[in-house]
């Protein structure tokens, strides 16, 4: 009996939590089918304006260009960030040296510096490399991800060292071991890392904001911020744009969902 009450209680809490996390999502989709006035009034039922909103968006703005910029940024960040961060994590875990943990600690500490504090120096640096208003100016600083280094190192801890030893005995080079043996057997970890890298680069805001200077190089997040600003924004249009911006994340997440859960679980030492 007592147990039943506990379960009921847990379910009530879970239902509330689920509602809180799903509601904004629901509201976004409903909003994209309504007129701005109705969104303002807080209408919570589906309307019939999705096509109008969508047409307004496509006809008045260069949506394709914006999406293409975002896709490029995310693609390169995901690919390079996974390679660089996993190699760093692997190095920290597998090679023993005296200062290793100090260096690792220093790297982790940089997680605590908010980007706002780095903005001016990053801007100066990119300006020095002539990368202002270039997508590479956005991509490069996002490649080394401290969180991913940490995440990969945690996962490599479980990796059986015997396999690496065996490969060494067989005469494989260190790079060969990493790329041909370790990497293919850690798919779940890489999938989880890919989702993380994609999310951070796709949703990145401050970084592209300070680097990108012209309309034609804008990414999706900048585009939406612009739509939502102004004295009388068209909220139906904004919601439609947000739906479109959410789709790639959603697709990627569902495609990699199975691996993602495994990868996250894998990072917990059992």
């Amino acid at each position, binding site marked *: 009996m007592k147990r039943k009450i506990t379960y009921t209680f847990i379910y009530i809490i879970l239902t509330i939590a689920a509602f809180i996390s799903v509601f904004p999502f629901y509201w976004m989709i409903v909003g994209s089918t309504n007129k701005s*006035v109705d969104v*303002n*009034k*807080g209408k919570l039922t589906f309307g019939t304006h999705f096509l109008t909103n969508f047409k307004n968006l496509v006809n008045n703005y260069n949506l394709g260009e914006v999406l293409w910029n975002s896709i490029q940024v995310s693609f390169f960040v995901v690919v390079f960030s996974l390679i660089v961060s996993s190699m760093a994590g692997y190095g920290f875990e597998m090679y023993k040296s005296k200062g290793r943990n100090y260096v690792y600690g220093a790297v982790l500490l940089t997680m605590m510096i908010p980007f706002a504090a780095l*903005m*001016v*120096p990053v*801007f*100066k640096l990119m*300006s020095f490399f002539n990368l*202002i*208003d270039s997508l590479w100016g956005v991509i490069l600083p996002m490649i080394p991800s401290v969180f991913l280094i940490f995440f990969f190192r945690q996962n490599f801890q479980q990796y059986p060292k015997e396999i690496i030893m065996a490969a060494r005995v067989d005469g494989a080079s260190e790079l060969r071991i990493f790329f041909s043996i370790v990497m293919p057997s850690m798919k779940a970890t890489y999938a989880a890392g890919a989702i993380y890298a994609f999310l951070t680069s796709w949703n990145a805001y*401050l970084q592209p*904001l*300070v680097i990108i*200077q*012209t*309309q034609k190089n804008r990414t999706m997040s*900048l585009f939406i*911020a*612009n*739509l*939502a*600003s*102004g*004295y*009388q924004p068209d909220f139906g249009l904004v919601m439609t744009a947000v739906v479109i911006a959410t789709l790639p994340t959603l697709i990627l997440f569902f495609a990699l969902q199975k691996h993602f859960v495994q990868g996250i679980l894998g990072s917990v030492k059992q």
Partner: protein
Amino acid sequence: MKKRFSVFMLVVLFLGIVNAAGLSGKITIWCWDPNFNVAIMEEAAARYTKINPNAQIEIVSMAKEDVEQKLNTILASGVKKGLPEIVLIEDYNAKKYLESYPGAFADLTKHFNYDEFAPYKLEFMTIKDKVYGVPFDSGVAGWFYRRDYFEQAGIDPSKLDNITMDEYIELGKIVKEKTGKYMQAGDPYDGGLMRTLLQCAGTWYFDEKGQPNFVNNPAMVEAVNVYKKMADSGISKEVTGWNEWVAAFNGGEVASVITGVWIIGSIKAEPSQSGKWGVLPVPRLNVQGAVNASNLGGSSWYVLQNSENRDLAIDFLKEIYAKDVDFYQKILIDRGAIGTWLPAQKGEAYVAPDPFFGNQKIYVDFAKWMEMIPPVDYGIYTYEADAAIMGIMPDVYSGKLSVVEALKRAEEQCKNLIGL
């Protein structure tokens, strides 16, 4: 005759070439709001490229916070590459930029005849007799009211062009009693009305030295009193945020709105209310020297001193924003934007009656009130002061603190916020 004409044409052409050869290049402009500032700048750009075909103009549209963030980053980094030629800055924040980054903005004193602009727009963009901006849109305030509700309540609007906030609250009680509608809608923790009231009295949160001046400022004491009386009287529908506020008057729940002229677009968004609205001068604060005219918001254009095509940008602003009367008519009709270049207000769009407002010539009225707005130096910490005073309001409403005590605390709080 024909020959003379062709010679004349040649001269014109030649002059055109010489003039154009002198100034060419690309002007980059940062501003916010695709339906307002951006659209207006696009109109201005189209007009300028007709005069000077060698100029190329790129308008970068972004959120207001983003313009500020980017401007801060680029100016703080000291990088001189990739500066925009022109940026839009909100009037309340202008001085912060001018004082934080000396030398970053071009001194425009000699380039414009500033007597032609609304005087209140110059106060905050002037430092040591040098003017650094081109005044743009006005936030001249009006008291928008529903003709039908006022009639129902037996109130005659023609007698209301010179009243105080206290009288306004009394009228509000009558409206509520007779029609069941609220007099207005507002967020009791929003400083917009406070700023409007302070400006009508010709004062601000700060004294001449830039020190917070709350307790010894009669206008502020009175303004907080107004907030308190308003809350006690129940004439104001309590709303949170822009959307609820707009919904309150679009939905016909309130009899009037006191705010900046830029609200007209939102009022007109409800076509079923056409003909039912009118505009009166804002009620003034009950203190010495207050007038029935004020301002809320507005922004202006600034040219960056180290940008590549600075002179071209100045020429552009001069040719359009200080010369083109027709441009100002066009942006008023298309966007509801009231400029602050006074000669434009004799134009036909300004004198046309507006059927939505019961054929009142509202822009003639707004132009008149605009010239009456007392000039005020906004200083550099307007929003910090706003936060300090609004943060203490709950205790004022509950009666826990007297007005003077609350102002004392808020002044302390404001000093903390700005690090004095």
